[in-house]
Protein backbone atom coordinates (compact mmCIF):
# COMPACT_ATOMS: atom_id res chain seq x y z
CA UNK A 1 0.00 0.00 0.00
CA UNK A 2 2.59 2.49 1.15
CA UNK A 3 5.03 1.39 -1.50
CA UNK A 4 3.49 3.53 -4.19
CA UNK A 5 4.26 6.71 -2.28
CA UNK A 6 7.99 6.08 -2.23
CA UNK A 7 8.85 7.25 -5.76
CA UNK A 8 7.09 10.65 -5.53
CA UNK A 9 8.67 11.24 -2.14
CA UNK A 10 12.07 10.45 -3.59
CA UNK A 11 11.47 12.81 -6.51
CA UNK A 12 10.51 15.66 -4.25
CA UNK A 13 13.42 14.98 -1.93
CA UNK A 14 15.84 14.94 -4.85
CA UNK A 15 14.58 18.30 -6.07
CA UNK A 16 14.62 19.83 -2.61
CA UNK A 17 18.07 18.39 -2.00
CA UNK A 18 19.48 20.06 -5.08
CA UNK A 19 17.88 23.36 -4.10
CA UNK A 20 19.29 23.05 -0.64
CA UNK A 21 22.83 22.35 -1.77
CA UNK A 22 22.53 25.17 -4.25
CA UNK A 23 21.31 27.58 -1.56
CA UNK A 24 23.98 26.61 0.92
CA UNK A 25 26.77 26.88 -1.63
CA UNK A 26 25.44 30.26 -2.69
CA UNK A 27 25.09 31.42 0.87
CA UNK A 28 28.71 30.68 1.67
CA UNK A 29 29.79 32.15 -1.65
CA UNK A 30 31.34 28.84 -2.55
CA UNK A 31 30.46 29.32 -6.19
CA UNK A 32 30.97 32.35 -8.38
CA UNK A 33 27.53 34.01 -8.51
CA UNK A 34 28.18 34.78 -12.16
CA UNK A 35 28.31 31.05 -12.86
CA UNK A 36 25.50 29.99 -10.52
CA UNK A 37 23.38 32.77 -9.08
CA UNK A 38 21.72 32.05 -5.75
CA UNK A 39 18.07 30.95 -5.71
CA UNK A 40 17.27 34.22 -3.95
CA UNK A 41 18.77 36.20 -6.76
CA UNK A 42 16.78 34.21 -9.31
CA UNK A 43 13.61 34.89 -7.44
CA UNK A 44 14.41 38.61 -7.43
CA UNK A 45 15.16 38.58 -11.13
CA UNK A 46 11.92 36.76 -11.73
CA UNK A 47 9.79 39.21 -9.74
CA UNK A 48 11.49 42.13 -11.45
CA UNK A 49 10.84 40.89 -14.97
CA UNK A 50 7.36 39.92 -13.90
CA UNK A 51 6.65 43.44 -12.71
CA UNK A 52 8.72 45.52 -15.09
CA UNK A 53 9.12 43.24 -18.03
CA UNK A 54 12.38 42.71 -19.88
CA UNK A 55 13.86 45.38 -22.14
CA UNK A 56 10.66 47.30 -22.60
CA UNK A 57 8.26 44.41 -23.07
CA UNK A 58 6.28 42.70 -20.32
CA UNK A 59 7.19 39.09 -19.65
CA UNK A 60 3.85 37.82 -20.81
CA UNK A 61 4.45 39.46 -24.19
CA UNK A 62 7.72 37.62 -24.56
CA UNK A 63 5.96 34.39 -23.77
CA UNK A 64 3.07 35.15 -26.11
CA UNK A 65 5.38 36.18 -28.94
CA UNK A 66 7.26 32.92 -28.68
CA UNK A 67 4.04 30.97 -28.42
CA UNK A 68 2.65 32.75 -31.44
CA UNK A 69 5.66 31.80 -33.55
CA UNK A 70 5.54 28.24 -32.30
CA UNK A 71 1.82 27.89 -32.85
CA UNK A 72 1.82 29.47 -36.29
CA UNK A 73 4.67 27.26 -37.44
CA UNK A 74 3.20 24.18 -35.89
CA UNK A 75 -0.30 24.63 -37.28
CA UNK A 76 1.13 25.32 -40.70
CA UNK A 77 3.14 22.13 -40.45
CA UNK A 78 0.12 20.22 -39.22
CA UNK A 79 -2.07 21.15 -42.18
CA UNK A 80 0.66 20.46 -44.71
CA UNK A 81 2.76 17.62 -43.31
CA UNK A 82 -0.09 15.39 -42.16
CA UNK A 83 -2.03 15.31 -45.45
CA UNK A 84 1.21 14.91 -47.38
CA UNK A 85 2.30 12.12 -45.06
CA UNK A 86 -1.03 10.36 -45.37
CA UNK A 87 -0.96 10.64 -49.14
CA UNK A 88 2.62 9.42 -49.21
CA UNK A 89 1.60 6.42 -47.18
CA UNK A 90 -1.30 5.74 -49.51
CA UNK A 91 0.54 6.22 -52.77
CA UNK A 92 4.15 5.10 -53.27
CA UNK A 93 4.47 7.52 -56.20
CA UNK A 94 3.66 10.60 -54.16
CA UNK A 95 6.02 9.37 -51.51
CA UNK A 96 8.78 8.82 -54.03
CA UNK A 97 8.48 12.40 -55.24
CA UNK A 98 8.70 14.11 -51.87
CA UNK A 99 10.81 11.80 -49.78
CA UNK A 100 14.26 12.59 -51.21
CA UNK A 101 13.87 16.24 -50.26
CA UNK A 102 12.52 15.52 -46.82
CA UNK A 103 15.25 12.99 -46.13
CA UNK A 104 17.79 15.52 -47.34
CA UNK A 105 16.87 18.40 -45.07
CA UNK A 106 15.62 16.40 -42.09
CA UNK A 107 18.96 15.66 -40.40
CA UNK A 108 20.30 19.19 -40.94
CA UNK A 109 20.99 21.42 -37.99
CA UNK A 110 18.49 24.30 -38.27
CA UNK A 111 21.24 26.84 -37.72
CA UNK A 112 22.96 25.59 -40.86
CA UNK A 113 20.17 26.85 -43.09
CA UNK A 114 18.91 29.70 -40.98
CA UNK A 115 21.05 32.27 -42.78
CA UNK A 116 19.61 31.11 -46.08
CA UNK A 117 16.08 31.40 -44.72
CA UNK A 118 16.80 34.94 -43.58
CA UNK A 119 18.21 35.76 -47.00
CA UNK A 120 15.13 34.34 -48.69
CA UNK A 121 12.40 35.41 -46.33
CA UNK A 122 13.82 38.39 -44.53
CA UNK A 123 14.33 39.13 -40.90
CA UNK A 124 10.68 39.29 -39.90
CA UNK A 125 8.53 36.60 -38.40
CA UNK A 126 8.43 34.83 -41.77
CA UNK A 127 11.93 33.41 -41.50
CA UNK A 128 11.50 32.59 -37.81
CA UNK A 129 8.27 30.75 -38.49
CA UNK A 130 9.84 29.03 -41.48
CA UNK A 131 12.66 27.74 -39.31
CA UNK A 132 10.23 26.40 -36.74
CA UNK A 133 8.01 25.07 -39.51
CA UNK A 134 10.82 23.02 -41.00
CA UNK A 135 11.57 21.64 -37.56
CA UNK A 136 7.93 20.67 -37.09
CA UNK A 137 7.37 19.31 -40.57
CA UNK A 138 9.56 16.21 -40.73
CA UNK A 139 8.36 14.44 -37.56
CA UNK A 140 4.73 15.07 -38.49
CA UNK A 141 5.23 13.86 -42.03
CA UNK A 142 7.03 10.73 -40.91
CA UNK A 143 4.46 9.92 -38.27
CA UNK A 144 1.55 10.26 -40.66
CA UNK A 145 3.42 8.12 -43.18
CA UNK A 146 4.20 5.40 -40.68
CA UNK A 147 0.64 5.65 -39.37
CA UNK A 148 -0.67 4.71 -42.78
CA UNK A 149 1.89 1.96 -43.22
CA UNK A 150 0.92 0.38 -39.93
CA UNK A 151 -2.75 0.12 -40.81
CA UNK A 152 -3.57 -3.57 -40.99
CA UNK A 153 -4.44 -4.54 -44.53
CA UNK A 154 -7.54 -6.37 -43.36
CA UNK A 155 -9.03 -3.17 -41.97
CA UNK A 156 -9.00 -1.58 -45.39
CA UNK A 157 -10.34 -4.77 -46.91
CA UNK A 158 -13.15 -4.82 -44.36
CA UNK A 159 -14.12 -1.30 -45.38
CA UNK A 160 -14.07 -2.22 -49.05
CA UNK A 161 -16.26 -5.24 -48.37
CA UNK A 162 -18.69 -2.96 -46.60
CA UNK A 163 -19.02 -0.94 -49.79
CA UNK A 164 -16.54 1.89 -49.22
CA UNK A 165 -15.07 3.63 -52.26
CA UNK A 166 -11.35 4.38 -52.53
CA UNK A 167 -11.80 7.98 -51.47
CA UNK A 168 -14.01 7.00 -48.56
CA UNK A 169 -11.41 4.50 -47.43
CA UNK A 170 -8.97 7.38 -47.25
CA UNK A 171 -11.20 9.69 -45.26
CA UNK A 172 -13.02 7.13 -43.12
CA UNK A 173 -10.32 4.52 -42.51
CA UNK A 174 -6.83 5.72 -43.34
CA UNK A 175 -7.18 9.03 -41.56
CA UNK A 176 -8.69 7.85 -38.26
CA UNK A 177 -6.46 4.78 -38.21
CA UNK A 178 -3.39 6.98 -38.42
CA UNK A 179 -4.46 9.31 -35.63
CA UNK A 180 -2.61 7.50 -32.84
CA UNK A 181 0.66 7.68 -34.75
CA UNK A 182 -0.04 11.27 -35.74
CA UNK A 183 -0.48 12.17 -32.10
CA UNK A 184 2.85 10.62 -31.28
CA UNK A 185 4.24 12.67 -34.14
CA UNK A 186 2.62 15.80 -32.73
CA UNK A 187 4.45 15.32 -29.47
CA UNK A 188 7.79 14.63 -31.11
CA UNK A 189 7.28 17.50 -33.47
CA UNK A 190 6.34 19.99 -30.78
CA UNK A 191 9.31 18.88 -28.73
CA UNK A 192 11.71 19.30 -31.58
CA UNK A 193 10.24 22.59 -32.72
CA UNK A 194 10.54 23.88 -29.20
CA UNK A 195 14.24 23.16 -29.09
CA UNK A 196 14.77 25.40 -32.12
CA UNK A 197 12.90 28.28 -30.49
CA UNK A 198 16.01 30.08 -29.33
CA UNK A 199 17.73 29.66 -32.67
CA UNK A 200 14.68 31.12 -34.39
CA UNK A 201 14.82 34.24 -32.25
CA UNK A 202 18.50 34.90 -32.86
CA UNK A 203 18.19 37.33 -35.73
CA UNK A 204 16.61 40.77 -35.39
CA UNK A 205 14.12 39.82 -32.72
CA UNK A 206 13.28 42.15 -29.88
CA UNK A 207 10.87 39.90 -28.09
CA UNK A 208 10.31 36.28 -27.32
CA UNK A 209 11.61 34.01 -24.59
CA UNK A 210 14.44 32.80 -26.76
CA UNK A 211 15.51 36.32 -27.53
CA UNK A 212 15.31 37.20 -23.85
CA UNK A 213 17.72 34.43 -22.93
CA UNK A 214 20.07 35.31 -25.76
CA UNK A 215 19.98 38.98 -24.90
CA UNK A 216 20.61 38.21 -21.26
CA UNK A 217 23.58 36.10 -22.24
CA UNK A 218 25.05 39.11 -24.07
CA UNK A 219 25.22 40.88 -20.76
CA UNK A 220 26.11 37.73 -18.84
CA UNK A 221 22.93 38.01 -16.82
CA UNK A 222 23.03 34.41 -15.60
CA UNK A 223 20.05 35.11 -13.36
CA UNK A 224 17.84 36.09 -16.30
CA UNK A 225 19.17 33.16 -18.35
CA UNK A 226 18.23 30.70 -15.65
CA UNK A 227 14.84 32.30 -15.01
CA UNK A 228 14.22 32.09 -18.75
CA UNK A 229 15.23 28.45 -18.74
CA UNK A 230 12.81 27.71 -15.92
CA UNK A 231 9.98 29.46 -17.73
CA UNK A 232 10.76 27.61 -20.96
CA UNK A 233 10.87 24.25 -19.26
CA UNK A 234 7.60 24.78 -17.42
CA UNK A 235 5.98 26.00 -20.61
CA UNK A 236 7.20 22.98 -22.56
CA UNK A 237 6.06 20.53 -19.92
CA UNK A 238 2.63 22.19 -19.84
CA UNK A 239 2.27 22.07 -23.61
CA UNK A 240 3.18 18.40 -23.62
CA UNK A 241 0.74 17.70 -20.81
CA UNK A 242 -2.03 19.39 -22.79
CA UNK A 243 -1.29 17.29 -25.85
CA UNK A 244 -1.23 14.12 -23.79
CA UNK A 245 -4.48 15.02 -22.14
CA UNK A 246 -6.27 15.72 -25.38
CA UNK A 247 -4.84 12.54 -26.84
CA UNK A 248 -6.37 10.59 -24.00
CA UNK A 249 -9.70 12.31 -24.51
CA UNK A 250 -9.76 12.03 -28.28
CA UNK A 251 -8.30 8.58 -28.73
CA UNK A 252 -9.45 6.40 -25.84
CA UNK A 253 -8.72 3.37 -27.97
CA UNK A 254 -5.06 4.17 -28.56
CA UNK A 255 -2.80 1.22 -27.85
CA UNK A 256 -5.77 -1.07 -27.35
CA UNK A 257 -6.60 -2.07 -30.88
Amino acid at each position, binding site marked *: MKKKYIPPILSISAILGVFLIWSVLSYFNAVNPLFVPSPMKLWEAFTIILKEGYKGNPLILHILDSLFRLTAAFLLALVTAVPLGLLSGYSPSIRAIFEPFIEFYRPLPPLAYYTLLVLWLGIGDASKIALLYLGAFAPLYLSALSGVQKIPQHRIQAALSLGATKWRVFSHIIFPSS*LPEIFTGIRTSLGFTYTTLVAAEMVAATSGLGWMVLDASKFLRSDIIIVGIFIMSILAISIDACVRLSEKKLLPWKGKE
Partner: protein
Amino acid sequence: MPLNTYDNQQAGEAPFISLKDMQMEYQSGSKTLRVLENIDLDVNTGDFICVLGPSGCGKTSLLRIIAGYENATSGEVKIDGKKHKGPNADIGVVFQQANLFPWLSVEKNIEFGLKMKKLPKSERKRIIDHYINMVGLTEFSSLLPHELSGGMKQRAAIARSLATEPKVILMDEPFAALDSITRQSIQEQLRELWKQTNKTIFFITHDVDEAIFLANRIITINGSPGTVTLDIENPLANKIEEASDYRDLKGYNELRHLLINTLKNREAPLSQNLIKAKIAAAE
Protein backbone atom coordinates in the same frame (compact mmCIF):
# COMPACT_ATOMS: atom_id res chain seq x y z
CA MET B 1 -8.01 -35.63 -58.76
CA PRO B 2 -10.65 -33.25 -57.66
CA LEU B 3 -13.91 -34.85 -56.79
CA ASN B 4 -17.18 -33.05 -56.98
CA THR B 5 -20.01 -35.20 -55.79
CA TYR B 6 -22.29 -32.44 -54.67
CA ASP B 7 -25.54 -32.43 -56.63
CA ASN B 8 -26.97 -29.01 -56.99
CA GLN B 9 -30.02 -28.57 -54.81
CA GLN B 10 -31.50 -25.71 -56.75
CA ALA B 11 -30.43 -26.97 -60.13
CA GLY B 12 -32.62 -24.43 -61.85
CA GLU B 13 -30.83 -21.36 -60.51
CA ALA B 14 -27.43 -20.25 -61.69
CA PRO B 15 -24.86 -20.44 -58.86
CA PHE B 16 -24.13 -17.14 -57.14
CA ILE B 17 -20.40 -17.74 -56.99
CA SER B 18 -18.79 -19.87 -59.62
CA LEU B 19 -15.10 -20.80 -59.92
CA LYS B 20 -13.95 -22.69 -62.99
CA ASP B 21 -10.56 -24.35 -63.23
CA MET B 22 -9.11 -21.73 -60.97
CA GLN B 23 -5.39 -21.65 -60.12
CA MET B 24 -3.65 -19.48 -57.58
CA GLU B 25 0.07 -18.78 -57.37
CA TYR B 26 2.11 -16.50 -55.13
CA GLN B 27 5.36 -14.89 -56.10
CA SER B 28 7.79 -14.95 -53.23
CA GLY B 29 11.11 -13.53 -54.31
CA SER B 30 12.01 -15.31 -57.50
CA LYS B 31 10.09 -18.44 -56.63
CA THR B 32 6.54 -19.17 -57.67
CA LEU B 33 4.43 -20.98 -55.11
CA ARG B 34 1.33 -22.70 -56.44
CA VAL B 35 -1.25 -22.70 -53.66
CA LEU B 36 -4.50 -23.77 -55.30
CA GLU B 37 -5.09 -25.87 -58.38
CA ASN B 38 -8.03 -26.98 -60.50
CA ILE B 39 -10.63 -25.42 -58.29
CA ASP B 40 -14.14 -25.91 -59.62
CA LEU B 41 -16.70 -24.67 -57.19
CA ASP B 42 -20.25 -23.39 -57.35
CA VAL B 43 -21.81 -21.67 -54.36
CA ASN B 44 -25.59 -21.49 -54.55
CA THR B 45 -27.88 -19.06 -52.84
CA GLY B 46 -28.83 -20.42 -49.44
CA ASP B 47 -25.84 -22.71 -49.05
CA PHE B 48 -24.05 -22.94 -45.73
CA ILE B 49 -20.71 -24.31 -46.85
CA CYS B 50 -18.03 -25.28 -44.39
CA VAL B 51 -14.54 -25.63 -45.80
CA LEU B 52 -12.16 -27.94 -43.97
CA GLY B 53 -8.50 -28.40 -44.65
CA PRO B 54 -5.12 -28.69 -42.99
CA SER B 55 -3.10 -25.60 -42.25
CA GLY B 56 -1.54 -24.04 -45.33
CA CYS B 57 -3.70 -25.82 -47.88
CA GLY B 58 -5.04 -22.56 -49.26
CA LYS B 59 -8.39 -22.06 -47.52
CA THR B 60 -7.73 -18.42 -46.74
CA SER B 61 -6.40 -17.83 -50.24
CA LEU B 62 -9.62 -19.22 -51.68
CA LEU B 63 -11.69 -16.93 -49.48
CA ARG B 64 -9.60 -13.91 -50.42
CA ILE B 65 -10.14 -14.62 -54.07
CA ILE B 66 -13.89 -14.90 -53.61
CA ALA B 67 -13.86 -11.70 -51.54
CA GLY B 68 -12.02 -9.98 -54.36
CA TYR B 69 -8.94 -9.12 -52.35
CA GLU B 70 -6.75 -11.14 -54.61
CA ASN B 71 -6.89 -12.09 -58.27
CA ALA B 72 -6.68 -15.72 -59.26
CA THR B 73 -3.69 -16.53 -61.44
CA SER B 74 -5.84 -18.29 -63.98
CA GLY B 75 -9.35 -19.65 -64.44
CA GLU B 76 -12.70 -18.01 -64.15
CA VAL B 77 -14.16 -16.36 -61.05
CA LYS B 78 -17.74 -15.21 -61.54
CA ILE B 79 -20.05 -13.53 -59.08
CA ASP B 80 -23.72 -13.59 -60.02
CA GLY B 81 -22.74 -14.60 -63.54
CA LYS B 82 -20.45 -11.59 -64.03
CA LYS B 83 -16.70 -11.20 -63.78
CA HIS B 84 -15.56 -10.36 -60.25
CA LYS B 85 -15.35 -6.59 -59.81
CA GLY B 86 -13.36 -6.46 -56.57
CA PRO B 87 -14.48 -6.22 -52.95
CA ASN B 88 -17.97 -4.85 -52.66
CA ALA B 89 -21.00 -4.73 -50.40
CA ASP B 90 -22.55 -7.86 -51.97
CA ILE B 91 -19.87 -10.03 -50.45
CA GLY B 92 -19.56 -9.64 -46.69
CA VAL B 93 -16.48 -10.90 -44.88
CA VAL B 94 -15.94 -11.87 -41.24
CA PHE B 95 -12.30 -12.33 -40.34
CA GLN B 96 -10.63 -14.59 -37.80
CA GLN B 97 -9.89 -11.62 -35.58
CA ALA B 98 -12.88 -9.38 -35.10
CA ASN B 99 -11.34 -6.48 -37.03
CA LEU B 100 -13.80 -3.80 -35.92
CA PHE B 101 -12.85 -0.16 -36.49
CA PRO B 102 -11.39 0.69 -33.08
CA TRP B 103 -12.45 4.37 -33.07
CA LEU B 104 -16.13 3.60 -33.69
CA SER B 105 -18.62 2.34 -31.13
CA VAL B 106 -20.38 -0.96 -31.77
CA GLU B 107 -23.33 0.96 -33.19
CA LYS B 108 -21.17 3.14 -35.43
CA ASN B 109 -19.27 0.10 -36.62
CA ILE B 110 -22.50 -1.49 -37.72
CA GLU B 111 -23.60 1.79 -39.26
CA PHE B 112 -20.46 2.04 -41.38
CA GLY B 113 -21.66 -0.11 -44.26
CA LEU B 114 -25.06 1.58 -44.19
CA LYS B 115 -23.45 4.99 -44.49
CA MET B 116 -21.47 3.76 -47.44
CA LYS B 117 -24.77 2.74 -48.97
CA LYS B 118 -26.03 6.27 -48.27
CA LEU B 119 -29.14 5.10 -46.47
CA PRO B 120 -31.11 7.82 -44.69
CA LYS B 121 -30.58 8.19 -40.97
CA SER B 122 -33.88 6.75 -39.79
CA GLU B 123 -33.47 3.71 -41.99
CA ARG B 124 -29.97 3.19 -40.66
CA LYS B 125 -31.23 3.40 -37.11
CA ARG B 126 -33.84 0.75 -37.76
CA ILE B 127 -31.39 -1.68 -39.32
CA ILE B 128 -28.76 -1.16 -36.62
CA ASP B 129 -31.30 -1.79 -33.88
CA HIS B 130 -32.43 -4.95 -35.56
CA TYR B 131 -29.00 -6.50 -35.94
CA ILE B 132 -27.58 -5.27 -32.68
CA ASN B 133 -30.52 -6.93 -31.01
CA MET B 134 -30.06 -10.10 -33.01
CA VAL B 135 -26.50 -10.54 -31.74
CA GLY B 136 -27.54 -9.52 -28.23
CA LEU B 137 -25.41 -6.40 -27.93
CA THR B 138 -28.19 -3.86 -27.41
CA GLU B 139 -26.88 -2.90 -23.99
CA PHE B 140 -23.36 -2.46 -25.28
CA SER B 141 -24.14 -0.46 -28.42
CA SER B 142 -22.21 2.63 -27.38
CA LEU B 143 -19.05 0.87 -26.20
CA LEU B 144 -15.82 1.02 -28.14
CA PRO B 145 -14.41 -2.28 -29.42
CA HIS B 146 -11.59 -2.39 -26.87
CA GLU B 147 -14.20 -2.40 -24.13
CA LEU B 148 -15.73 -5.64 -25.40
CA SER B 149 -14.74 -9.24 -24.78
CA GLY B 150 -13.52 -11.41 -27.65
CA GLY B 151 -16.88 -13.05 -28.18
CA MET B 152 -18.75 -9.76 -28.12
CA LYS B 153 -16.37 -8.33 -30.68
CA GLN B 154 -16.90 -11.26 -32.98
CA ARG B 155 -20.67 -10.92 -32.68
CA ALA B 156 -20.45 -7.22 -33.47
CA ALA B 157 -18.37 -8.00 -36.53
CA ILE B 158 -20.98 -10.49 -37.69
CA ALA B 159 -23.73 -7.92 -37.17
CA ARG B 160 -21.72 -5.39 -39.13
CA SER B 161 -21.43 -7.80 -42.04
CA LEU B 162 -25.09 -8.77 -41.94
CA ALA B 163 -26.39 -5.21 -41.69
CA THR B 164 -25.31 -4.32 -45.20
CA GLU B 165 -27.31 -7.31 -46.37
CA PRO B 166 -24.64 -8.88 -48.53
CA LYS B 167 -25.70 -11.67 -50.82
CA VAL B 168 -23.06 -13.96 -49.39
CA ILE B 169 -21.00 -13.92 -46.20
CA LEU B 170 -17.49 -15.29 -46.15
CA MET B 171 -16.08 -16.28 -42.78
CA ASP B 172 -12.46 -17.26 -42.11
CA GLU B 173 -12.21 -19.31 -38.91
CA PRO B 174 -14.26 -16.67 -37.18
CA PHE B 175 -14.52 -18.49 -33.86
CA ALA B 176 -10.98 -19.81 -33.53
CA ALA B 177 -10.03 -17.24 -30.93
CA LEU B 178 -13.00 -17.89 -28.67
CA ASP B 179 -13.11 -20.19 -25.67
CA SER B 180 -15.18 -23.33 -26.07
CA ILE B 181 -18.28 -22.19 -24.17
CA THR B 182 -18.65 -18.82 -25.87
CA ARG B 183 -17.91 -20.57 -29.09
CA GLN B 184 -20.69 -23.06 -28.72
CA SER B 185 -23.28 -20.42 -28.01
CA ILE B 186 -22.22 -18.24 -30.91
CA GLN B 187 -22.25 -21.26 -33.24
CA GLU B 188 -25.85 -21.88 -32.25
CA GLN B 189 -26.75 -18.27 -32.94
CA LEU B 190 -25.15 -18.33 -36.36
CA ARG B 191 -27.03 -21.48 -37.29
CA GLU B 192 -30.28 -19.92 -36.14
CA LEU B 193 -29.60 -16.80 -38.11
CA TRP B 194 -28.85 -18.72 -41.27
CA LYS B 195 -32.13 -20.61 -40.90
CA GLN B 196 -34.08 -17.41 -40.42
CA THR B 197 -32.54 -15.34 -43.19
CA ASN B 198 -31.54 -18.03 -45.65
CA LYS B 199 -28.26 -16.23 -46.22
CA THR B 200 -25.48 -17.80 -48.24
CA ILE B 201 -22.53 -18.56 -45.99
CA PHE B 202 -19.04 -19.70 -46.86
CA PHE B 203 -17.35 -20.73 -43.65
CA ILE B 204 -13.73 -21.82 -43.16
CA THR B 205 -12.80 -23.86 -40.14
CA HIS B 206 -10.26 -26.45 -39.16
CA ASP B 207 -12.56 -27.98 -36.60
CA VAL B 208 -14.40 -31.01 -37.99
CA ASP B 209 -17.12 -30.88 -35.30
CA GLU B 210 -17.81 -27.25 -36.08
CA ALA B 211 -18.30 -28.12 -39.74
CA ILE B 212 -20.67 -30.96 -38.95
CA PHE B 213 -22.66 -28.80 -36.60
CA LEU B 214 -23.04 -25.82 -38.90
CA ALA B 215 -22.93 -26.78 -42.54
CA ASN B 216 -25.44 -28.16 -44.95
CA ARG B 217 -22.55 -28.80 -47.31
CA ILE B 218 -18.98 -29.68 -46.40
CA ILE B 219 -15.93 -29.23 -48.59
CA THR B 220 -12.43 -30.41 -47.85
CA ILE B 221 -9.34 -29.00 -49.45
CA ASN B 222 -6.12 -30.99 -49.40
CA GLY B 223 -2.67 -31.32 -50.75
CA SER B 224 -0.10 -28.94 -51.94
CA PRO B 225 -1.16 -27.23 -54.13
CA GLY B 226 -4.62 -27.57 -52.61
CA THR B 227 -7.50 -29.12 -54.49
CA VAL B 228 -11.06 -29.90 -53.51
CA THR B 229 -10.97 -33.52 -52.34
CA LEU B 230 -14.48 -33.87 -51.05
CA ASP B 231 -17.70 -31.93 -51.56
CA ILE B 232 -20.71 -33.49 -49.86
CA GLU B 233 -24.06 -32.66 -48.44
CA ASN B 234 -24.06 -32.85 -44.65
CA PRO B 235 -26.32 -35.85 -43.99
CA LEU B 236 -26.90 -34.72 -40.40
CA ALA B 237 -27.85 -31.15 -41.27
CA ASN B 238 -31.54 -31.61 -40.62
CA LYS B 239 -31.18 -33.70 -37.51
CA ILE B 240 -28.86 -31.43 -35.58
CA GLU B 241 -31.62 -29.44 -33.97
CA GLU B 242 -33.59 -32.34 -32.71
CA ALA B 243 -30.66 -34.00 -30.98
CA SER B 244 -29.65 -32.83 -27.53
CA ASP B 245 -26.03 -33.52 -28.47
CA TYR B 246 -25.31 -33.95 -32.15
CA ARG B 247 -22.36 -36.12 -31.29
CA ASP B 248 -24.79 -38.76 -30.17
CA LEU B 249 -26.50 -38.80 -33.56
CA LYS B 250 -26.26 -41.95 -35.60
CA GLY B 251 -23.81 -41.49 -38.43
CA TYR B 252 -21.89 -38.82 -36.58
CA ASN B 253 -18.86 -40.99 -35.91
CA GLU B 254 -18.78 -42.26 -39.47
CA LEU B 255 -18.98 -38.77 -40.93
CA ARG B 256 -16.32 -37.57 -38.56
CA HIS B 257 -13.95 -40.40 -39.47
CA LEU B 258 -14.59 -39.86 -43.13
CA LEU B 259 -13.71 -36.19 -42.88
CA ILE B 260 -10.66 -36.73 -40.70
CA ASN B 261 -9.34 -39.45 -42.94
CA THR B 262 -9.90 -37.37 -46.02
CA LEU B 263 -7.99 -34.55 -44.38
CA LYS B 264 -5.20 -36.89 -43.45
CA ASN B 265 -5.40 -38.31 -46.93
CA ARG B 266 -5.54 -41.81 -45.53
CA GLU B 267 -8.69 -42.89 -47.28
CA ALA B 268 -9.35 -42.48 -50.95
CA PRO B 269 -12.17 -40.02 -51.54
CA LEU B 270 -15.53 -41.70 -51.84
CA SER B 271 -18.36 -41.02 -54.18
CA GLN B 272 -21.41 -39.26 -52.81
CA ASN B 273 -23.46 -42.40 -53.08
CA LEU B 274 -21.01 -44.50 -51.19
CA ILE B 275 -20.93 -41.94 -48.43
CA LYS B 276 -24.68 -41.91 -48.27
CA ALA B 277 -24.73 -45.64 -48.11
CA LYS B 278 -22.15 -45.76 -45.37
CA ILE B 279 -23.98 -43.24 -43.27
CA ALA B 280 -27.31 -44.93 -43.90
CA ALA B 281 -25.84 -48.24 -42.78
CA ALA B 282 -24.83 -46.66 -39.51
CA GLU B 283 -28.30 -45.32 -38.83
